[in-house]
């Protein structure tokens, strides 16, 4: 016949029609097709045939087919009764061994939860800044020069970019760096982070406006607020056209409100944007900076024009600065480039003009690897326990097979069971993650949520679960299902052959299992060693002699002119109130180095020596407040009017300058001669992990930004702070009283390391926990296997101690083995890590010894429970069984 209906439709029909009806129905279909192709032509008949076939896809036929299959067929895998039975058996098995099931599911869930948390964290890091609409077109101008790579630029650069390279950029906006300003409206005043930006900035970043428009910043007396700040200042009212005051001087009208920027973005804390021109009209120095190519104080953000890319623009603007700088600065070979937004977070560290691995990226790798390892441990465990347990089901396999199960059915059953358990674990792990997220966010300083609506998240967790399930189920599904029923079932009665074959099998199966245990303990031990070394390093830096008295030392930044004018009055009142014992002002707080200078000349300085000093401007009495310890010479004193050209240096500076007799040496700087009057012991001002900078202390009453207050130690701190706050409010009413305790600020310098230590220790504990679960499961499996042997040994006179050591020995050997693998690995990686810190510990041998003792005793404790239980068992019982 020429006209035949499409064959694929026929096979479709065959797929769902009940087999007993197939012949007559297909016959009818074909007959009708033959009529119709005569009547309407072949093409149309085919279409009609297609729809006719589709109409056969009816529940009636499917139902009939199922019914027929489950009634007559021998190998129907989707028979409901059988599926119900599989579920029943699966749950019975889970409930029969509650302990195992708990360990198994809980262990896997923990591992999955940890991996998920880390995965979410990595996702958060990778999606940094992606909230910006023009994410892949935004960049900032950076410069490589002799000393490093910087993101601050001179004001005229922005103008030049606009004038000569305007066609390459859609928007250019110069901004100040984000810092805290006092902002007030009516009687409400807050310290808020903000920045002053040129008018194109809102458009450049594509801010989401709640009120007003992005163009609002063009008016120099306007301000944009973040949604949360607008709420804080004006409640639920429409804040447009309300007036706010910044720094108590700059008045501006609210011209727009933008949606808060998310925590994982560059401008996470930006709560208001002021117009650049407003700031410039108040800051006279900005006028001078306008044509100064040497003053690098501002950031320039750009959005590229559609047709250009970062590389070509960078190549174009590379040499702009050379045209405007003097010969000395050109020698540094300044090289401008546009740094794309996608790289700001993770790829913004440069050494010698080349991008290098940033700390953040290192952390991602570190946590990523840890996450994969913890997950691996949990999976290993899961497989280990599942396979150990499935051994007991050999008999079930035998029986199922003898009553007619096919191997495929057993394979499906075991895979299904394993998947079921994995999915239960998955649900648990999701719950765990949800519960742990608040703590985790606090620890990691993030705002992470489960990506419920993200398909990638679902795909990855489902993919992972299926993978684990299939892997864990592969042993029972593929190996156990191949057993010959007669052997398995007969084995029970013919003890010798059964035992010998079983034993061989057990041995064989135990080798990969031992490898798994070794892997687990290797990871756990390495993590324990790593954590201990991190903590030792932190402790080492904390114990470092800071060289001054942190106790009761308070720092207040002088951010408003009121404070300068009223300083003396404030000082007197505070001293009278008894809250403070002394006050002095200085250029920066003692916990920070704000100023670095070069160009000092002294006797014996090598001509090509490029000097660089930390400079610190102080006033009389300052030394008493922080407690300088003099090694030589004397303090600044009001008795000597010549002290205005005197300096005090620290010990490091003496060494750095190579002075034998520092006192009375003359140092020339900026055309002025200074006399060294004193040398103080080193004080830690920068990072406690870094060497101390050579520091010069000058007497200077003009460039002061910090009031240092020594609290009266005999008064309760809260009372003293209250009194101080009162005085400050009186003389500086425009801003809220904001203060910092030096010891708290100092402690913050350890925050990164402590965070790392905390997270690492959590992982270490989890890893050890998961490993112990695995060991526990394995031990119970092995002791069960050896019940008979133990019984015989007991009858022959073995003591409990004998049996305990017999059973525990194997495991201790495994742990010792892991120790030998983990220790060198941990040693290598931790010494690499310590290299980052100039001021660091040496890894000492006892860390390894303590870890070894710890690991062995934890393993022994875990195994002993099972071992002693088995050893105490009445031999009559163990021998009588079966």
């Amino acid at each position, binding site marked *: 016949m020429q006209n035949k209906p499409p064959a694929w439709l026929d096979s479709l029909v065959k797929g769902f029609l009940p087999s007993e009806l197939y012949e*007559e*129905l297909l016959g*009818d279909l074909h007959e009708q097709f033959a*009529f119709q192709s005569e009547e309407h032509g072949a093409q149309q008949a085919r279409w009609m045939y297609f729809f*006719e076939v589709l*109409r056969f896809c009816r529940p009636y036929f499917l139902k009939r087919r199922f019914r027929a299959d489950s009634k007559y067929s021998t190998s129907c895998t989707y028979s409901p009764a059988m599926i119900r039975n599989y579920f029943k058996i699966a749950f019975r098995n889970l409930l029969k061994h509650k302990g195992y099931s708990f360990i198994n599911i809980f262990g896997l869930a923990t591992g999955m939860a940890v991996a998920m948390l880390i995965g979410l964290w990595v996702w958060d890091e990778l999606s940094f800044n992606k909230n910006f609409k023009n994410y892949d077109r935004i960049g900032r101008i950076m410069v490589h020069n002799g000393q490093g790579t910087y993101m601050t630029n001179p004001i005229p650069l922005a103008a030049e970019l606009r004038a000569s390279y305007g066609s390459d950029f859609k928007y250019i906006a110069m901004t100040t760096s984000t810092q805290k300003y006092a902002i007030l409206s009516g009687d409400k005043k807050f310290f808020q982070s903000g920045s002053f930006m040129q008018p194109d900035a809102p458009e450049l970043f594509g801010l989401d406006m709640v009120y007003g428009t992005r163009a609002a910043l063009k008016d120099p007396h306007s301000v944009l607020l973040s949604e949360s700040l607008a709420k804080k200042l004006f409640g639920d009212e429409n804040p447009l056209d309300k007036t706010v005051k910044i720094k108590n001087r700059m008045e501006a009208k609210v011209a727009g409100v933008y949606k808060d920027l998310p925590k994982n973005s560059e401008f996470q804390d930006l709560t208001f944007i002021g117009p650049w021109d407003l700031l410039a009209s108040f800051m006279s120095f900005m006028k001078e900076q306008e044509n100064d190519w040497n003053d690098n104080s501002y950031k320039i953000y750009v959005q590229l024009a559609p047709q250009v890319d970062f590389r070509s623009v960078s190549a174009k603007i590379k040499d702009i600065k050379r045209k405007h700088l003097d010969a000395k600065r050109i020698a540094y070979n300044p090289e401008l480039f546009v740094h794309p937004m996608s790289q700001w977070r993770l790829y913004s560290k440069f050494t010698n003009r080349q991008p290098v691995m940033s700390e953040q990226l290192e952390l991602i790798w570190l946590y990523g690897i840890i996450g994969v390892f913890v997950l691996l441990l949990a999976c290993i465990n899961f497989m280990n326990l599942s396979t150990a347990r499935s051994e007991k089901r050999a008999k079930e396999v035998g029986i199922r097979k003898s009553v007619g199960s096919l191997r495929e059915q057993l394979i499906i059953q075991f895979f299904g069971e394993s998947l079921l358990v994995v999915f239960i674990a998955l649900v648990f792990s999701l719950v765990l993650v949800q519960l742990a997220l608040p703590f985790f966010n606090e620890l990691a300083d993030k705002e992470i949520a489960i990506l419920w609506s993200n398909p990638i998240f679902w795909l990855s967790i489902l993919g992972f679960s299926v993978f684990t399930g299939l892997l864990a189920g592969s042993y029972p599904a593929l190996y156990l299902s191949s057993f010959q029923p007669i052997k398995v079932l007969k084995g029970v009665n013919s003890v010798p052959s059964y035992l010998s074959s079983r034993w061989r099998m057990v041995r064989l199966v135990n080798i990969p299992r031992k490898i798994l245990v070794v892997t687990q303990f290797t990871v756990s031990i390495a993590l324990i060693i790593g954590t201990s070394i991190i903590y030792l390093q932190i402790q080492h830096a904390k114990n470092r002699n800071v060289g001054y008295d942190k106790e009761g030392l308070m720092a207040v930044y002088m951010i408003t002119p009121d404070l300068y004018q009223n300083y003396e009055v404030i000082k007197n009142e505070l001293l009278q109130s008894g809250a403070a014992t002394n006050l002095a002002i200085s250029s920066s707080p003692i916990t920070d180095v704000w100023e670095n200078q070069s160009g000092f000349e002294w006797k014996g300085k090598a001509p090509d020596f490029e000097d660089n000093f930390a400079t610190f401007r102080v006033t009389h009495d300052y030394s008493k407040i922080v407690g300088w310890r003099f090694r030589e010479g004397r303090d600044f004193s009001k008795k000597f009017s010549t002290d205005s050209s005197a300096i005090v240096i620290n010990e490091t500076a003496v060494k750095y300058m190579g002075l034998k007799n520092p006192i009375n040496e003359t140092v020339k700087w900026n055309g002025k001669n200074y006399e060294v009057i004193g040398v103080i012991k080193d004080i830690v001002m920068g990072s406690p992990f870094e060497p101390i900078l050579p520091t010069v202390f000058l007497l200077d009453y003009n460039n002061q930004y910090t009031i240092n207050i020594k609290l009266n130690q005999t008064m309760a701190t809260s009372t003293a702070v209250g009194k101080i706050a009162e005085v400050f409010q009186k003389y500086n009413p425009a801003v809220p009283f904001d203060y910092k305790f030096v010891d708290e600020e100092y402690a913050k310098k350890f925050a990164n390391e402590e965070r790392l230590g905390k997270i690492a220790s959590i992982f270490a504990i989890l890893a050890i926990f998961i490993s112990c679960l695995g060991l526990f499961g394995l031990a119970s499996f092995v002791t069960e296997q050896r019940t008979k042997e133990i019984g015989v040994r007991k009858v022959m006179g073995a003591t409990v101690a004998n049996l305990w050591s017999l059973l525990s020995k194997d495991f201790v050997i495994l742990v010792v083995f892991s120790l030998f693998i983990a220790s060198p690995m941990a040693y290598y990686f931790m010494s690499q890590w310590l290299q980052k810190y100039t001021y660091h510990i040496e890894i000492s041998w006892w860390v390894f010894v303590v870890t070894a003792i710890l690991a062995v005793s934890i393993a022994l404790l875990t195994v002993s429970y099972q071992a002693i239980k088995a050893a105490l068992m009445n031999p009559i019982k163990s021998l009588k069984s079966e």
Partner: protein
Amino acid sequence: MGRSYLGEFEELVLLTVAVLEGTAYGVTIAAELKQRMNNRLISLSGVHIALYRLEEKGFVVSELGGATSERGGRRKRFFRITALGKRTLAEMRQVRNELWDAIPNPSFS
């Protein structure tokens, strides 16, 4: 026990089986119905399901019969109306007639 329910389409199919006396199977029934009902859309699957339901209810019986080349040599299943089927149809007709007679103004159509 009350009679099994007979749907509208089932009733039509049953009548057609009676009409086609001896040559009733899926294709012929569908064709007959289509022709008589002004090409109302009749699907083969619908006809078959109705036939199988009628068979389950005992209104028709079936047997496998001859094959033709259009069918690729496959046999067809012929349906025959049973006595129960005939009686049911007759009863339904009677109910309808009585109802028609009870209409007060028979000339409304």
